[in-house]
């Protein structure tokens, strides 16, 4: 009963933000919101740019790549020299080079894969100045790319698709900062920690225990961690720890924050292209996939854990291994699906201890390319790539040149869309094959049997999709996993963004074909079905063999333990 009320509240809250945050974001990127002009204008002056200076897609992509490279360098340097920087009450040493590389790539690509335990590795300076900063910047970059692509559909005969610097500045100050700050206050008001005072030690006279507890500026990092679909927490066990996620209310707020922008961007898209109905069509496809995944994953987690049941302890409340009492089984599954079908990757439980089908729900949510609703920005542009492919397939079936929103989809766009859709599966499957072929790769998993393979597959799928969640048993802090994971994350981010921007540029240059009776409709239930079909066929078929070696074998090996 509680679970259904949770879902109902979530639907109402997200419906509200879909409509109003969606149209607000459209206004922000159209340049109709100015209340922070006194901050915005000096920034443009310092950058030597202005909203009137529009960029071609190539210049837009160039600015994005160089800014990302500089961000990686900044993050890397801070981690490498944190021992000599201030705000380090626990005297954490400098972070090693392979781990710094992996971590800086991870936060700049919106992945937030963590091969370290935050409380034993990072100084407050690193958490604030390196990691939290990128938790703002990386979603802004993702949203900017999505908006630039949307402008490709919205504009006619245009050589330009916007200004990268203006787009990220507006996104940072008008969208991410205000929402994150308010959410941060709610997190702390409900129990999350926010202090710069370092650890605290006390002696409990009742049971004679002495505890030393790590603290830090956690609550406000938590807010942007969820809102920006980042997922990298202050503490090792992320949102499972009470200092990050103290109550059922903050848990719900986390789920809401990480879903609100990705869903609302479909409204922004509809508004900007002049057909909210088209936005609602994409939203419908996302909601259906998301609902199915929540359903079967929550059902799987409501079952007994096979290994615990084998010890003859049966659970009336589902699989509690690795879960927190205050969240419960089904809400934890909802959190997990929300986190893996966006590019968030935060975790309010140990995903490694999910039942085989529950773990499959998380893993396959990423394998579909994170489109339902996907990451901040990346969800919308990946969904649009699938919509273009669906339009193409629909066009083949009825024998007409495919069009989407009046723009002819031709060989160039299809090639780019094909590239964008295939980069992730190819990268993930190749790096997984490399990892299981090498002794250094096979040394990673903690669990034996099919679950060991699942740990490797999950880790590399997560990084290739810029998700960042993990089957935590994988020991990732080795030179091999740090480097192969870094490459995986870079390809999963930029090898998709660049073709997406190229599609935007190429569409912006086209004129609009007037709609006729024979035009293939892209705003009805039929198209929703077609898009879902394309996503399931591409994602499902490419990954099915790999999945069957992991979670499916695990589910079927009845009464066997490894």
């Amino acid at each position, binding site marked *: 009963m509680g679970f259904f009320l949770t879902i109902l509240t979530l639907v109402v809250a997200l419906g509200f933000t879909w409509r109003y945050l969606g149209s607000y974001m459209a206004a922000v990127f159209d340049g109709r919101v100015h209340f922070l002009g006194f901050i915005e204008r000096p920034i443009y002056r310092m950058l030597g740019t202005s909203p009137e200076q529009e960029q071609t897609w190539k210049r837009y992509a160039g600015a994005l790549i160089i800014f990302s490279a500089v961000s990686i360098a900044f993050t890397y340097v801070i981690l490498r020299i944190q021992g000599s920087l201030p705000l380090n009450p626990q005297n954490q040493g400098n972070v090693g080079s392979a781990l710094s590389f992996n971590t800086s790539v991870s936060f700049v690509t919106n992945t937030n894969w963590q091969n370290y335990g935050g409380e034993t590795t990072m100084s407050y300076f690193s958490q604030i100045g390196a990691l939290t900063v990128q938790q703002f910047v990386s979603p802004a970059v993702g949203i900017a790319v999505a908006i630039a692509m949307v402008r490709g559909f919205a504009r006619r005969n245009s050589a330009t698709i916007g200004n990268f610097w203006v787009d990220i500045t507006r996104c940072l100050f008008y969208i991410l900062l205000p929402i994150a700050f308010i959410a941060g206050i709610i997190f702390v008001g409900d129990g999350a920690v926010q202090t710069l005072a370092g650890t605290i030690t006390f002696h*409990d006279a009742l049971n004679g225990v002495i505890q030393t507890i790590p603290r830090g500026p956690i609550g406000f990092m938590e807010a942007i961690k969820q809102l920006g679909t980042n997922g990298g927490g202050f503490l090792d066990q992320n949102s499972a720890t009470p200092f990050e996620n103290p109550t059922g209310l903050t848990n719900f707020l986390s789920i809401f924050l990480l879903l609100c922008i990705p869903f609302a961007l479909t409204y922004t898209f509809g508004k900007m292209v002049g057909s909210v109905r088209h936005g609602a069509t994409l939203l419908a496809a996302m909601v259906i996939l998301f609902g199915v995944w929540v359903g079967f994953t929550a059902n799987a987690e409501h079952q007994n854990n096979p290994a615990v049941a084998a010890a003859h302890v049966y659970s009336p409340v589902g699989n509690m291994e690795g879960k927190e009492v205050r969240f419960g089984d089904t809400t934890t599954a909802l959190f997990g699906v929300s986190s893996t079908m966006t590019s968030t990757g935060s975790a309010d439980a140990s995903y490694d201890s999910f039942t085989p089908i529950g773990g499959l729900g998380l893993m396959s949510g990423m394998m579909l390319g994170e489109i339902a609703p996907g990451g901040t920005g990346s969800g919308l542009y990946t969904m649009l790539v699938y919509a273009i492919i669906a339009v193409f397939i629909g066009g083949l079936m009825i024998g007409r040149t495919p069009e989407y929103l009046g723009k002819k989809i031709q060989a160039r766009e299809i090639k780019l869309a094909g590239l964008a859709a295939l980069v992730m599966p190819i990268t993930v499957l190749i790096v997984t094959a490399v990892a299981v072929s090498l002794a250094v790769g096979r040394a990673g998993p903690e669990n034996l049997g099919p679950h060991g393979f699942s740990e490797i597959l999950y880790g590399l799928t997560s990084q290739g999709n810029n998700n960042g969640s993990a089957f935590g048993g994988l020991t990732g802090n080795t030179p091999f996993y740090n480097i192969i994971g870094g490459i995986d994350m870079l390809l999963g981010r930029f090898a998709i963004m660049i073709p997406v921007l190229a599609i935007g540029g190429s569409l912006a240059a086209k004129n609009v074909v007037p709609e006729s009776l024979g035009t293939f409709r892209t705003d009805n239930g039929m198209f929703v079905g077609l898009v879902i079909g394309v996503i399931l066929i591409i994602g499902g078929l490419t990954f099915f063999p790999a999945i069957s070696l992991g979670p499916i074998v695990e589910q079927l090996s009845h009464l066997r333990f*490894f």
Partner: protein
Amino acid sequence: MLVHLRRSVVMAVICLVFFGFIYAFAGTGVAQALFPFHANGSMTKNGSLLIGQNWSSPKWFHGRPDDTGPYAANAKNNVAGGDNPLVANGSHGESAATNLGPRSLTLKENTIALVKYWHKLGVNPTIDLVTTSGSGYDPDISAIDATVQIPMVSNATGISPASLRTLIAQQTHSAEWGFLGSSYIDVLQLNEGLAKLEK
């Protein structure tokens, strides 16, 4: 190219200032002003309400397991993780889960060892009492987890089962807003209540 590079460096510095320092310092200031108790870790004189402790004596209600406690009964399978490193006297460590998979032989054996451990204490364990949490220091148990421990606590302290049942009912927090998450009991608060009953 050079223009991009110059703008990138300027933008990176702007972001460091606004979204690193101003955001974190302003946030800390607001948090410390409005909610000092929460912002500093919900500390009471016996510890944080949000961090589980190792309650090993039968005079107290126990929390969920970790390997410095009940797993010690199964020394062979002391796994990395699954412990409560904050308990390890004085030295601070990481939050950690066992990360054992659903068909892990180790998880099965650990669970069997935990059942034996509880039986020795005269408790018929519920699911939460034989599984480790996601954080490794879950501060909470459910009302049923506390109820099954009544015979153990009653024998050790001499407090009647009826007053322990009343205490448990008083200490049970309902889910937030009645439906977000699950109802729970904070073990530290429960034991502080128990200490008052003993006086």
